[in-house]
């Protein structure tokens, strides 16, 4: 057995691996469920980008809040939503985290700070800024995180939201997941300045760094600094994470015509999970057997989640118009 000091020092590093594997296995199983017709609506997976949600959320408390995107399963899981609740929501079941009212693009678990994934590109940035405004107004030390893709960077919400967060010193962490494409539109065709951090420093005088989004330790480090800055009242930050999605934009979509097989193969070589596994072993934080055990555990958890979702009931049709107003149940 490793000595105690090594064990406690290693555990947070191994936990990053555990979360990334959990997200990967969940996404793979959800993609399969989608192919089997068990997911009636759209499904955008996070495969290849797991290091970002994992590295960021490792720095958050349960009462910190996250505003997410259409590609939000990873953010939900990293914030603590169970694979059962995510899988059940995608299958439209009453046991889903939005009780069947949302699906993949509207995952909600406000009791643990998941304030919604979103079917619209942009609003996560504004709502994230607004939660920061709340925390500042109410004198809380909670922080808010807004995730968004490169596709949101040219949207007006980005400019308006980052500008407001900067001028009012709001406790917000803006996390750009630049996977090089917004559906099939390349980021290089959508902007003259692909270095988002540079743009943000120049335009808003906001702390901003560019990191390898496939390096979970780099993301975690950048997020640790950004969260500390926000929590201590020193204002917002942007983390510009360069990454790549290795599955189609959404399950079942044609994936050709806008990117090459060579590009895809090169990025698969930079898989964030494999890279972290190699580092954990090399640095002596875990053995290959430890990591295999973690993978087996994730597989069991996710199989259980899929089974739970499949066997859960659909919501009662009589409740279809419940919850429109606060009083209405």
């Amino acid at each position: 057995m490793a000595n105690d000091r090594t064990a406690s020092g290693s555990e947070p590093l191994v936990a990053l691996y555990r979360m990334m594997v959990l997200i990967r296995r969940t996404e793979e199983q959800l993609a399969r469920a989608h192919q089997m017709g068990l997911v009636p609506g759209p499904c955008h997976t996070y495969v290849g980008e797991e290091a970002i949600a994992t590295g960021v959320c490792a720095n958050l408390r349960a009462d910190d809040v996250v505003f997410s995107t259409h590609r939000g399963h990873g953010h939900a899981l990293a914030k603590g939503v169970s694979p059962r609740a995510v899988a059940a929501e995608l299958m439209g079941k009453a046991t889903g985290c939005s009780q069947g009212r949302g699906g993949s693009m509207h995952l909600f678990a406000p009791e643990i700070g998941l304030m919604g994934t979103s079917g619209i590109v942009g609003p996560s940035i504004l709502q994230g800024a607004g939660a920061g405004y709340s925390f500042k107004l109410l004198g809380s030390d909670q922080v808010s995180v807004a995730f968004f893709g490169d596709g949101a960077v040219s949207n007006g919400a980005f400019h308006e939201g980052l500008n407001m967060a900067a001028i009012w010193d709001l406790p917000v962490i803006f996390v750009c997941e630049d996977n090089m494409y917004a559906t099939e539109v390349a980021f290089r065709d959508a902007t003259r300045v692909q270095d988002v951090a540079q743009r943000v420093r120049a335009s808003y005088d906001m702390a901003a760094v560019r990191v390898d989004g496939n390096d979970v330790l780099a993301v975690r480090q950048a997020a640790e600094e950004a969260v500390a800055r926000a929590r201590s009242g020193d204002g917002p930050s942007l983390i510009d994470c360069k990454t790549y999605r290795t599955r189609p934009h959404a399950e079942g979509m044609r994936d050709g015509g806008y990117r090459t097989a060579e590009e895809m193969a090169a990025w698969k070589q930079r898989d964030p999970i494999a890279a972290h596994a190699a580092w954990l072993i090399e640095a002596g934080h875990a053995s290959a057997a430890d990591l295999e055990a973690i993978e087996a555990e994730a597989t069991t958890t996710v199989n259980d989640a899929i089974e739970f979702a499949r066997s859960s009931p659909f919501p009662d049709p009589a409740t279809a118009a419940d919850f429109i107003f606060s009083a209405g149940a």
Partner: protein
Amino acid sequence: MREITYTEAAREALAEQMAVDPSIFVVGEGIGERGGNFNTTLGLYEKYGPMRLRDTPIVERGFVGLCAGAAMTGSRPVVDFMFIDFILDSMGELLNQISKIQYMSSGRIKMPIVLRGCIGIGGAAATHHSGSYYPLFVHIPGFRVATPSNPYDAKGLLKTALTGDDPVLFLEHKLLLNRRGPVPEAEYALPFGQAAVIREGSDATVVALAVMAPKVLDVCDELAKDRLDIEVIDPRTLAPLDMATILESVGKTGRLLIADETFGPCGIGAEISAQVMEQGFDDLDAPIARLNGVHTPTPYSPSLESAIIPDNAAIEKAIRDLVAE
């Protein structure tokens, strides 16, 4: 009872609630030290400072989206649009986010947000400063829509807006802002979805919205001299809409006119008319009538502007025609 203006009454509601609820903050352009283009926040900045009276850059979409996030996390934002026309820049945040998040979160997230601004035609404001737009919001599930027509209602409805947990459009017609009326000094609030019968009568029912309420009352005073006895109803909120009061009145009079300065097509009059047809057809002694502003962008020149709003003569004619049917 003391008489104060519509704007003073609404401001009193805001000031009283800001004093007891530290989670309320106001955003808008010039609502800080300046006190608001329409004096909506006069004197409040000195008391509460910039965090609660937040002057913003001109980013309607941005600050509406920001206020959504704030409302979701324990604050109670009041968005002061000045002219409600500016709300159009934020429609996605309103119709796709603010109206839907309580539902999507199955009631676990609240959306206590007040969206206020002045509406209506008058003063040669021309077409970018004369809109009302309330039928759009009534059409969408998830909004409350209040259109107070006098100081008493303005204060009472804003109190309810500022203590409830739903998004509320609070729409103040610009020609009503300086009108005075009785407002009690004691605390009160008016529930949403409760129309006011502002004049009792038996010959016909007129539902009069916002600025049309005082205009219709003036006309009915004149008609009374001809022994025409008209009942006038001000719905006060359009969502929820108090159909029970309207149906009861139609049951008594058998005749209905809906008077609304905004557009006719797919408007509030169309909706009320359809519901009366569905639920009160047998009570009708004449076809339901509507009186609306002309379906056009608002022109600037006074001669054109006055040509598109229903004036007292048009109201009188509509009522006489209805009674003669």
